[in-house]
Every structure is written in structure tokens, then in C-alpha cells.
């Protein structure tokens, strides 16, 4: 830990991610955000590790639990939060919402369909091969999606074609109500990499440094050789979505994990106890981040929803209005 700036930036980013999603939670309570909001609270260390390893030109295809990946990809917070709040100022003008975030220039996309981001990332990786550049395509997925057919097809094709694809699995142990232990034929997901003749490694996803190094190794392999897989272990702190009664797992498990395995809390203690950042510095940093997020939230809340007259726009790029309309 001989790089204080790196560690401060890591902690700052993880706190910012946490505050961002906490701000989103208020939008559910106030009924400004509709549908199934999925937060990644508890998974910040993985997203922060991703952020360190993604270059601006790299592609990232994410999932329904995607806000932190958008932040990691460098999507500005204001249009990001505005889209999650369904505002006309949002990244997609309010047409996408929290599950459907797209930024063509930053090569970022998401999907609400489990496992569907993998083939899209494969396409980005193939585009890099066609262009002959050294960009990497990242697919970030949850442990639930590895049992969908698209995972197998994508891993196989990426390996056959030797594409620069990095698959990061956030193994948060739960696919809605089904635990990982009841869903996977293999004890680890990393070991499935063997089937595709690619490197795979499992890492403690609460440890930002270890996760960053593992992703870094995967990226290095991708740029030189072909696809690689990283399985980062974490825990889904909230229900599958906001409003999920979450009765399928025990309260004692949740209490234990959320109190002893919180990556933000763990890192804070590590930094303070290791003498990296003192209490006053940590508090100052936290209040700065809180103020930044509060300002974004206030700005977003003042914005309007898109005018209802625009509902027919964008079905076709050509302006074609469809068969029936």
C-alpha cells in the first residue's frame, strides 16, 4: 500500500458508488423511479477494480445490475442518474430507464435480460479484431447468467476466434431466490474456463486490490492472446430488486454479511488502521462525495419527464412509424 493517492481514489470511488445507489433508493421510495430497480450495494470493490482496468476506448456490456459499471466506464453521473430517474435529460432521454443504459461513444450498453450482454460484448470484441486495434471488450455478468446458453456460445466463440474478451462474473451468491450452490454444476465458475481453454480465476470481490490485479491479468491475456474469465466473489446486500420481500434467505446470513463483509467498511478500516488516511481525512472525503451526489440528485429531481408526445419517436432510425401506428 505504498501509493496513497491510488488508495484514496479507490476509496473515494467506492464511496461515490455507494452514495449514488443510495440516492437511487430514495427515488424508489418517492416513486420517481418505477419498475424493478436493482442495486449493486456490496459489490463496489469489483466495479472500482473494473474502473482501474478499463481504457476509454474499451467496450463494456453490462447487466440489469448496472449502475456501478456505468460509473466505472466513465459515464457522467448527471445524465446517468437522470436516466435512472426517467428524466428527459437522461442518457437516453428517459426512453431506457435504469435497466437500459446506452452510450455509443463510450462503447457502453446494458440489457435487462440475464446473460444477454455476453454476445453483445463478443460483437465489440470482434469489431476490435476487424479494426485491428487493441481494445478489449468486457462483459460483466452475474452468477445467474452462466447457466444460460449464451454464456457457453459466447465463451466458445470468443476462444475459437481468439478475441479480446474479458468476462467478469460478479458472483453475489443469489440468482433472485435461488442460491449459487443450488444452481451451478461446478463449485467455482472460474473452473468452467477450462472447458473453453482459457484462463479463469476466482478472486475475493470484496478486496479491491486483489480484484483489480486479477482483472488486470485477464486484460493482459485478452490483449495478447484471447478471452479470459474472472469470478469475483461478493454478496447481494439488497433483495433482487427494490421491493423484493427477500424472504428466501435467512436474516442471520444477511446480517452477518452486511455487517462483516461490506467492502466499503472493510476498506475504510484498512486505510485508517494501516495509517493511510486518518479519520478526519476520511470524513472530509466522505462528506465531499455526499455533497457531490446530493447536488446531482437535486438537479435530476428538478428535471422533467419527457413529453408524452414523444412516445412514438425512435422506433426506427429512419422515422418509420411502424405497421400499425
Amino acid at each position: 500500500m505504498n501509493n496513497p493517492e491510488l488508495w484514496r481514489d479507490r476509496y473515494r470511488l467506492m464511496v461515490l458508488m455507494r452514495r449514488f445507489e443510495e440516492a437511487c433508493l430514495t427515488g424508489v421510495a418517492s416513486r420517481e423511479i418505477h419498475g424493478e430497480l436493482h442495486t449493486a450495494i456490496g459489490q463496489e470493490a469489483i466495479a472500482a477494480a473494473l474502473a482501474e482496468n478499463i481504457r476509454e476506448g474499451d467496450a463494456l456490456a453490462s447487466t440489469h445490475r448496472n449502475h456501478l459499471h456505468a460509473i466505472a466506464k466513465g459515464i457522467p453521473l448527471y445524465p446517468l442518474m437522470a436516466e435512472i430517474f426517467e428524466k428527459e435529460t437522461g442518457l437516453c432521454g428517459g426512453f431506457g430507464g435504469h435497466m437500459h443504459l446506452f452510450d455509443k461513444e463510450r462503447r457502453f450498453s446494458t440489457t435487462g435480460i440475464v446473460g444477454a450482454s455476453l454476445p453483445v460484448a463478443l460483437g465489440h470484441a470482434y469489431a476490435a479484431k476487424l479494426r485491428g486495434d487493441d481494445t478489449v471488450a468486457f462483459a460483466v455478468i452475474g452468477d445467474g447468467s452462466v447457466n444460460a446458453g449464451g454464456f457457453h456460445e459466447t465463451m466458445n466463440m470468443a476462444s475459437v476466434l481468439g478475441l479480446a474478451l474479458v468476462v467478469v462474473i460478479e458472483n453475489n451468491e443469489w440468482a433472485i431466490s435461488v442460491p449459487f450452490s443450488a444452481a451451478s454444476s461446478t463449485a467455482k465458475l472460474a473452473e468452467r474456463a477450462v472447458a473453453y481453454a482459457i484462463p479463469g480465476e476466482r478472486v475475493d470481490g470484496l478486496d479491491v486490490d486483489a480484484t483489480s490485479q486479477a482483472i488486470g491479468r485477464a486484460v493482459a491475456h485478452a490483449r495478447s492472446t484471447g478471452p479470459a474469465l474472472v469470478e469475483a466473489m461478493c454478496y447481494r446486500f439488497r433483495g433482487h430488486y427494490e421491493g423484493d420481500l427477500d424472504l428466501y434467505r435467512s436474516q442471520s446470513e444477511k446480517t452477518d454479511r452486511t455487517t462483516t463483509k461490506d467492502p466499503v467498511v472493510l476498506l475504510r478500516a484498512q486505510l485508517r488502521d494501516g495509517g493511510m488516511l486518518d479519520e478526519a481525512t476520511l470524513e472530509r472525503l466522505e462528506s465531499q462525495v455526499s455533497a457531490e451526489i446530493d447536488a446531482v440528485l437535486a438537479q435530476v429531481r428538478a428535471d422533467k419527464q419527457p413529453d408524452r408526445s414523444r412516445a412514438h419517436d425512435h422506433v426506427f432510425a429512419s422515422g418509420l412509424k411502424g405497421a400499425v401506428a
Partner: protein
Amino acid sequence: MTMTANPTNETSAPRNINISQAVAEGLRLAMEADDRVVVIGEDVATQGGVFGSTRGLLKAFGPERVLDTPISEMAFTGMAVGLAMDGYRPVIEIMFVDFIGVCLEQVYNAVAKIPYMSGGKVDMPVVIKTAGGSIGAAAQHSQTLWGLFGHLPGLRVVAPSNPYDSKGMMAAAVASDDPVVFIEHKGLLLERAQDFEFGANVPREAYDVPLDKAAVVRPGSDLTLVTLSGSVRHALTAADAAILSGVDVEVIDLRSIVPIDWETIGTSLAKTRALLVVDEDYLGYGLSGELITGAIERFGLGSLDYVGRHGNPGIPVPAALSLEREIVPGTESILNAIVRAGAER
């Protein structure tokens, strides 16, 4: 798109070529004109497609722009999504339309919806090239399914009936910034060039046939028969025979399922006041209902003396040809439908 004849050709006189040659030529010219166009699918490169409709492309453009894939439709269809996001114009081939089930998720949740979900900021200039039609290949290899695609918002859906249209519509599909489902007909793909009664003369140079214009392929005064793809030839033969029954049939080749060319249909109905839809696809919840209801909505109940439809009544396509002929429109059954329509007016 720009129209440039191949300078090495001594003549640009039209030739008799078949549909697979026409499609391959449309693709080749599009790929020559725009190096963002890539062709991806099973057996499209070395073999040139199981129907030959990508033949010659591998030699002309190499294995990266003409990619033979594993049997992994979900992966390579999603690949088209990522490629389109990166500025490419992918053409993916789903060998038979019957196989769309294994990758429909990427088709209707990604290809068709991303332009909308992104607020118009991400286009999906993807062509989903596939083959439909009942050819005696039974329930899993003889469907048409354009009604399925037509139901899903965000997809243009076209199905040409002859070589000339196939080449020009493929060019237009590749040039379109909208996603296009391009449904060839297996039966037509297997026809020889000289068997086409119309649209068989194909110029060598590049040209577009618009994706949203129906064609009046036989003028008539008594009944508007709207059909498409493989049924057009049967409808024309039946229409010629119907003269003996005193019914003068106007045959419209729809060409585009989404959008429907209501102008051409409306002009015809104003003359005939009678609409018969012939559809090789399943009738229920499909194109025939869309055309009849759409005509009534647009032109009024009072504008029509007759509406009728003839198509697959909603039965999996059987293996035995005797059974297939019972449920798939052919010359004889279309003639019967015309005569019924004439009698009921």
C-alpha cells in the same frame, strides 16, 4: 447508395440469374461499396450458404468479413448488436427462419429495441437474412414466420418474390439504418433463373428496390389479391386461370410486411372493392388479419364488398406432400379462393 457498374464488365445488360445469385450479388456490391458491411453465419463462407446466397463473398472479402460461425445463433446474433454499436453494418444469416427461436431474444430485445431504448442515440443497421417457406421439409423446416417478426416493434420485415427484387432489396436492406428481417423463400431459392416469369432479368450494376413499396404484378378490375414471396407465382397462375370464371384479379406483391404499403393497396381497393389475402404463413394473429383490419380501418367498412383470406390455417407444416398441399396455398387452392370471392360478391 452509389450506383457503379463493374468497370471490367463489357456490358451491363441484364442477365437471367436465380435468387441466390441475385442476393449474393447484392451483398457483394454492398460490401464493395462499404467496408463496414460484414456477413456472419453458419456455412456462409466456405460453402457460400446452404442455398448459395453468399457464394463468392469469402473469396472476394476474406474470412474476417465473411465469417463462418459455430452453430451458435444466440452468440452471433448478439455479436451483430455489438458490431452495430461499433459502427459496423452486419448481415447475419439464420439459415432457416425456423431456427429463430434460439436467438429471438437478441432479435426482439436488442436489435429491435435498442434504437428506442437509447432514445434514438444507437442505431441497429443489422440485416437478419433468413429463409422461410414450405418446401416439403415438415414442421421444423418449412415455416415462413413473417407475422412473428411483424408483431415485434422496431423491425422492418421484407420478403421478395423474384431475382430482381431480391438483389435490389438486399442492397436497400444493407443500406438501411433500421434493422431489416430479410426473408428469402426456400422454394424460390431452389428455382432456376429461367423459371421466373417476372423479375428474372437482373442488371449487373448496383441498384436499390425500396423496402416499403408493394408492386402491382398483374393489373385487374374485380378483386385485389395481396400476397408475397413464394405465393406470388401461384397467385399469378391462378389469376390467369380465373379469367375463365369471369374474375379479373389484380395481384399485388406486398414485398414489405413492415411497413405495409397502404397507398398501393388503397389504390387497388378503390377500383375493386374486394380484398383477398393469400398468406403462406399461419393465418391466426398474422399478416392476413393485419391487412384486412388495416384496410377496414383506413378505407372504411363501406369501401369493401368482400374480404377474405387464404393461408395456413394454423397447423404445423406436415411432412407428406399430400398433407402439405392441403394447408399451404398453391395454384389450385388460390384459384378456389378467387372463385369463392367472385361468387360471394
